[in-house]
């Protein structure tokens, strides 16, 4: 099982492997256990590598360590209006000069900013922390008003021209899509219900932090909006989502009102949108916003690190919901900053604000 080298071709989720390891016949058990063990050691090695790198160049660092500074490997294709991700020509590869095509250049620059964010802030080498190429596809489809992560690439449409425009215009949208790759590589959060909404929220957190760092903004100066530049001028709205005020990003006759809740009491049960992953993400989004603004300063430094290390925590399972994730963030904050620290208090206040309990018995 799962013989491919990249994790993206490995479709057997850990809980299934665990079940095979517990219930399968001899050979099945052996194979499942081997895969589980390998996944776990890869994860530990990644965490270890990230910690070493996050320290930056140390005194007496040897030549090899310096020479091995990770670099992005961007590969932008033009789908030329077709719904094909792997056929269109490469229009800009790493080190190439600008093409003059806005979507291609925005994707190249935005992926570079996001790569730099993960490397310089968290010591992470690309999506998989092993230097994975950043594959971007622009001009995908006809009047395609979406951007997505296909498990391997970040894909961007030009918009329908009626409600949504070119998706690469917003840096946080580019960061959001690359963030899905990071979440998939680290935690494999299932794209359904609460685990899916957490997956979405992690992407909004990363997207927003990439933009805040690019603008050198502290938490109280940031707009905490996702996709400010993608609505067409005729839509009444500031952005697609607001982490500061979920539910208030837009209100328009054509597209309706922002449906995001900011508290568990308003959690939306639905089968649409994979169980409301883009709706209920408002809850963890607002918890992060609350924690980050209570702490002040640059949000990526403390709140961002707590969330990022929570994503790497061994207790995070693919089906983890809000309450379990909240408890993990608290544990990580305790480990990084101490039990009586202001950071722990801010994390607890963040989850309290949105009605997600963090006490052990919850």
């Amino acid at each position, binding site marked *: 099982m799962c013989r491919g080298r990249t994790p993206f071709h490995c479709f057997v989720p850990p809980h299934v492997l665990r079940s095979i390891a517990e219930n399968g016949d001899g050979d099945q058990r052996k194979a499942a256990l081997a895969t589980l063990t390998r996944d776990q050691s890869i994860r530990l090695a990644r965490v270890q590598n990230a910690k070493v790198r996050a320290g930056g160049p140390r005194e007496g660092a040897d030549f090899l360590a310096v020479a091995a500074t990770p670099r992005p490997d961007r590969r932008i294709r033009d789908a030329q209006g077709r719904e094909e991700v792997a056929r269109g020509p490469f229009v800009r590869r790493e080190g190439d000069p600008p093409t003059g095509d806005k979507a291609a250049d925005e994707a190249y620059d935005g992926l570079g900013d996001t790569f730099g964010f993960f490397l310089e802030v968290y010591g992470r080498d690309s999506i998989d922390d092993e230097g994975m190429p950043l594959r971007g596809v622009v001009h995908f489809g006809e009047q395609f008003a979406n951007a997505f992560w296909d*498990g391997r690439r970040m894909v961007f449409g030009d918009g329908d021209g009626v*409600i949504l425009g070119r998706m690469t215009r917003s840096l946080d949208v580019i960061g959001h*899509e690359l963030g899905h790759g990071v979440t998939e590589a680290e935690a494999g959060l299932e794209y359904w219900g609460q685990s899916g909404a957490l*997956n979405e929220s992690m992407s909004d957190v990363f997207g927003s932090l990439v933009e805040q760092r690019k603008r050198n903004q502290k938490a109280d100066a940031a707009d905490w909006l996702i996709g400010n530049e993608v609505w067409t001028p005729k839509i009444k709205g500031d952005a697609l989502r607001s982490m500061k005020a979920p539910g208030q990003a837009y209100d328009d006759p054509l597209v309706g009102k922002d449906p995001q809740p900011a508290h568990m009491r308003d959690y939306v049960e639905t089968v649409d949108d*994979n169980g409301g992953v883009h709706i209920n993400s408002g809850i963890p989004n607002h918890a992060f916003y609350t924690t980050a603004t209570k702490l002040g300063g640059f949000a990526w430094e403390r709140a961002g690190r707590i969330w990022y290390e929570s994503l790497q925590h061994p207790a995070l399972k693919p089906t983890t919901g809000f309450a379990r994730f909240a408890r993990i963030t608290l544990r990580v904050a305790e480990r990084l900053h101490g039990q009586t620290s202001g950071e722990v208090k801010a994390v607890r206040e963040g989850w309290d604000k949105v009605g997600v309990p963090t006490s052990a018995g919850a």
Partner: protein
Amino acid sequence: MRLALKRSGGIAGLTLRAEVETEELPEEEGRELRELVRRTNIEGLAERGSRPRGADRYQYDVAVEDGDHRARAVVSGEHVPPELRSALDRLLQRQLG
């Protein structure tokens, strides 16, 4: 033939809906749409499931009433045959004027 369509998800998380009687469409468009839907195994689509590969894909909810035959599928966009998906997108986009 009656179609009730819904497309949700995508990075914007917007939901578009459309209800269509193929007999009320221009003749050729209605006929092509009926043939396209009849060629597609809607129940088979449902079995492929709604769980997406990756993230921020569109999710389609397609309900069909064709005489006595009824079928419905909730399915992630990459599992819908491209020709049908384009036809559904055109019908949904039309709702935006």
